[in-house]
């Protein structure tokens, strides 16, 4: 009885979380142009979205922005995390505080603070200003992913490598980097996701000519969303779903293979 109640509760919450997703996926197959009524099943939006220049351009901008900002944030953030790990408490306090500001501050305040900065320096609002903004809010995610991994690394192994004649740089690549790699990778993907999904900070740091998918959706809300947008986001959602399943499944297959080969050798 209790487990039934528990399951029912989980299903109820899942229903709340997935109702909009199901709605959007359904709308992507809706032949009618308005979202108010169902006009029969169609796949035409999936074809026409590739011919819609505005949507394709926004997709391109969004992806380039996400990759570039995640990459640069990963480089700066990882380097900073490595330094922060062994830094004197005084300096580390500054970096911890500065890392927490964009994490805890409201996006709208971060957005307008950057907008004021770009205005003050008379920067041309466009791709570059948005990229700078995205890197800024991505770095903390990288640091918070890498720092815990660094704390788990065993310092003696690194020192042993130095004792055995490795240069610090060589020892870093051979000993520390492999240990913190999972943190770096998850920091990268976290940044990528945050950049992909950001609306508020982009809204304040972009110029009139530039659109990411989020800002394009926002301007379309008033005029009515083009059905191609539903098709595109359904496709993106499905891609992520498949990627996550594949990524989670492959290491498992790998591990079981290793286990099997291990057994064979033993036998």
């Amino acid at each position: 009885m209790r487990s039934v109640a528990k399951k029912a509760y989980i299903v109820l919450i899942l229903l709340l979380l997935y109702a909009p997703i199901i709605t959007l996926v359904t709308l992507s197959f809706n032949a009618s142009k308005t979202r108010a009524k169902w006009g029969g099943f169609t796949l035409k939006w999936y074809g026409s979205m590739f011919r819609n220049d505005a949507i394709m351009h926004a997709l391109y901008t969004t992806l380039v922005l996400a990759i570039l900002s995640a990459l640069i944030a990963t480089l700066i953030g990882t380097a900073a995390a490595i330094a922060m790990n062994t830094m004197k408490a005084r300096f580390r306090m500054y970096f911890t505080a500065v890392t927490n500001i964009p994490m805890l501050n409201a996006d709208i305040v971060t957005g307008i603070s950057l907008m004021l900065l770009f205005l003050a320096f008379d920067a041309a609002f466009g791709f570059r200003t948005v990229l700078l903004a995205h890197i800024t809010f991505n770095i903390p995610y990288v640091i918070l992913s890498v720092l815990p991994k660094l704390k788990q690394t065993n310092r003696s192994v690194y020192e042993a490598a130095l004792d055995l004649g490795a240069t610090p740089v060589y020892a870093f690549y051979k000993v520390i980097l492999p240990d913190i790699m999972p943190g770096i990778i998850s920091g990268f993907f976290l940044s990528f996701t945050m950049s992909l999904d950001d609306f508020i900070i982009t809204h304040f740091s972009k110029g009139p000519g530039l659109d990411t998918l989020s800002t394009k959706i926002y301007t379309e809300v008033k005029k009515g969303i083009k059905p191609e947008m539903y098709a595109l986001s359904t496709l993106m959602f499905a891609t992520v779903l498949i990627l996550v399943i594949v990524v989670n499944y492959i290491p498992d297959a790998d591990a079981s293979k290793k286990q099997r080969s291990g057994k064979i050798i033993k036998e």
Partner: protein
Amino acid sequence: MKNKKDLLSLPYFIWSAGFIIIPLCMIFFYGFTDRDLHFTFANIASITETENIKALLISILLALIATLICILLAYPLAMIIAGSKLKDSGFMIFVFILPMWMNFLLRTLAWQTLLEKNGVINTILSKLNLPALSIINTPYAIVLGMVYNFLPFMILPIYNALIKIDPNVINAARDLGANSLQTFLYVIFPLSIPGLISGITMVSVPALTTFVISDMLGGGKILLIGNVIEQEFKQANNWHVGSGLSIVLMLFILLAMGLTAKYDKEGGNYF
């Protein structure tokens, strides 16, 4: 910085000074000056104008309600997931995060389709001969949007706090004669407070400052403090008043941050 390794933090030091510290100073600079760049408190004081104070109070009220509902929904859920067999629990958490991969604006927009007069929910309700639900363009819809969007931010930290509890502590309480309720009240709940507190911050800050959810589900009739600030910047082009109101908003965020710093000593557990 004598240590050579410390130099690795130099790029971030420069970056953070240029894109985090200076921009924040800019808000304070604009917030305390008028258009002729003379010092003034007028921008801060503009929060007391009827429209602005109304927006701030509604924002605080709605954010409080949304946070409370999130706690009530997320806590039992986190307990159920944390209590399930370890192998499922990772998968369950994945299931609860997955919706966040659909664009946040589109997900919020989908609630319009669901909640509208002739929307999906009302069609289902009328088929079941139940009274229609008309909450679109009301504060209720905004609260729903907030709960919907920020619920995962409450589930995750509570779940993380719960799975860190050593089962031996719970067993010890049971051995010493505590019943389930006592074990929960005196052992499990106090140990989950850091997670709960960081969940509260992660939900209440975006809920307090949102302008998108109120825009989409409030029908533009209900202005939150986020909407007021957004309009000052994007439509009225009055950066001074906008900055002044942002400073007031930051005071409330600082309040939440102070709470977090006090309870969440572990830090850095935002995901």
